[in-house]
């Protein structure tokens, strides 16, 4: 009871519940239920001081407004005691807020031993989530984006309720940030480096997943859904065929690679998007931005993956991310080339 009261919980309980939906999204993780009391504690503290200060300003303004010109005013210059009080009290309160804030933050970095290991990789404009132990990999699936009405890519992230999950986040090209408002958690995805946090989702449901670090053109559409599953649903998910891992031997390996990496910028129906369409591109002589031409063959595709800005097709802007051998090994590149070949030859179809 005491702890509840001390952490503003009682206050939060009395007032908070009523407007928890006004300020905060639903609390869906243990970290959220730790963090919200601190948020409300700061909120009520600031509201109290703000009302005090604005009340004083309003009252002084009205009481001491200039009634007669040349009206005498008090010669008070300073008051040592008052000035000490209004320096010491804020300092003490701020130190309390600091101590409470850092406790929750540091605990994020020490996951329990039995946490489910999940690897998150952000690349230009979608997330890929791998479950190393469970042979599952939830890549971006194409879906009609409810906001823009266009074909977009969204990732579905499945998480068991009540079980700690350890996220190890990285990126392949630029900075992204894996942000789930309902869990109150976010951490930047930094290329060639691992960052991360752990959480326990305790409210089954479907929540939003955003990218919170500006990453270019479709930063605002790098969205996803987080599905917190009950035990029953989680076991069903493990057995289901959803989120298959990319199986290099399968014949549609090339197509799966295309969907995971190329689909956001290159279409297969002939219409150019951020980059040229792959339909009928194989063997076609493309005119480049610098006037020269190149025949689309193995070497051109391989070079465009390893060093994208080398030969850019006329009319398209540079900015494609680098797919070095770490992201797409030679086998993956060959599968991708086979897939492009299968989209029609000879460049006869515009």
């Amino acid at each position, binding site marked *: 009871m005491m702890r509840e009261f001390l952490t503003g919980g009682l206050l939060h309980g009395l007032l908070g519940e009523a407007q928890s939906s006004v300020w905060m999204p639903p609390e869906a993780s243990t970290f959220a239920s730790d963090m919200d009391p601190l948020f409300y504690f700061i909120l009520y503290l600031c509201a109290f001081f703000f009302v005090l200060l604005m009340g004083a300003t309003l009252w002084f303004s009205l009481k001491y407004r200039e009634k007669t010109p040349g009206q005498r005013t008090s010669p008070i210059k300073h008051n040592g005691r008052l000035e000490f009080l209004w320096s010491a009290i804020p300092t003490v309160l701020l130190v309390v807020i600091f101590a409470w804030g850092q406790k929750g933050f540091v605990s994020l970095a020490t996951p329990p031993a039995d946490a489910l290991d999940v690897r998150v990789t952000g690349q230009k404009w979608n997330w890929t989530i791998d479950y190393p132990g469970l042979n599952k990999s939830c890549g971006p699936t194409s879906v009609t984006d409810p906001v823009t009405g266009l074909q977009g890519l969204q990732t579905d992230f499945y998480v068991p309720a009540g079980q700690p999950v350890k996220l190890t986040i990285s990126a392949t090209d630029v900075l992204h940030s894996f942000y789930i408002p309902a869990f109150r958690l976010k951490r930047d995805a930094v290329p060639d480096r691992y960052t991360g946090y752990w959480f326990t989702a305790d409210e089954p449901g479907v929540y939003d997943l955003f990218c919170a670090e500006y990453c270019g053109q479709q930063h605002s559409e790098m969205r996803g859904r987080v599905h917190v599953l009950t035990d029953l649903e989680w076991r069903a998910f493990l057995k289901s065929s959803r989120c298959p891992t990319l199986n290099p031997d399968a014949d549609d390996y090339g197509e799966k690679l295309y969907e995971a990496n190329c689909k956001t910028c290159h279409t297969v129906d002939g219409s150019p998007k951020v980059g040229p369409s792959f339909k009928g591109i194989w063997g076609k002589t493309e005119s480049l931005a610098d006037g020269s031409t190149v025949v689309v063959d193995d070497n051109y595709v391989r070079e465009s993956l390893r060093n994208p800005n080398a030969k850019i097709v006329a009319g398209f802007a540079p900015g494609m991310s680098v797919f070095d*051998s770490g992201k797409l090994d030679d086998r993956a590149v060959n599968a991708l080339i086979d897939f492009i070949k299968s989209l029609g030859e000879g460049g006869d179809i515009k």
Partner: protein
Amino acid sequence: MATTYIRGKQVEPEMEAPHHDVAPMSLYWKVFGALLVLTCLTVAVSYADLGKASLAVAMVVAVVKSTFVVMYFMHLKGDDRTFTFIFLSTLVFVGIFFGLTFADLSTRDAVNSEWGYHGWANEKGQIIERTAPAHGEGGHEAAAGHEAAPTEGHPSPEAAPTH
């Protein structure tokens, strides 16, 4: 030059022409000689294989040389104290810049070695096995010989597992 008095208190003493004490030529020669000697010293020391200490020695010599230049050639010695204050406070801010940046860089592995890992991917994109820096020295002195070298903890000795 008349001096300005307000109610008997002299205001802005430096308002009247400061007398320029011209240092003897011999002082300049001595400082010049000292600088040359120190340069030869630091080059000679670099050939002796001191390993880790070579940085510290080089920095000490550089600081001594720069104090000579600043005190005598730039006349900071006999000059208005505000210039010395400006010079030293700049070095303090350079120290802050170094210290707090290294506070982050050198403690990345402190809490969780895998996430804090300052892993550098190699050509094939895997995080290469990165041994802790051989002699774990942190940043060196700032541009012009500031005294407090920022001290940082050693990054965790064991290397992170490769993936």
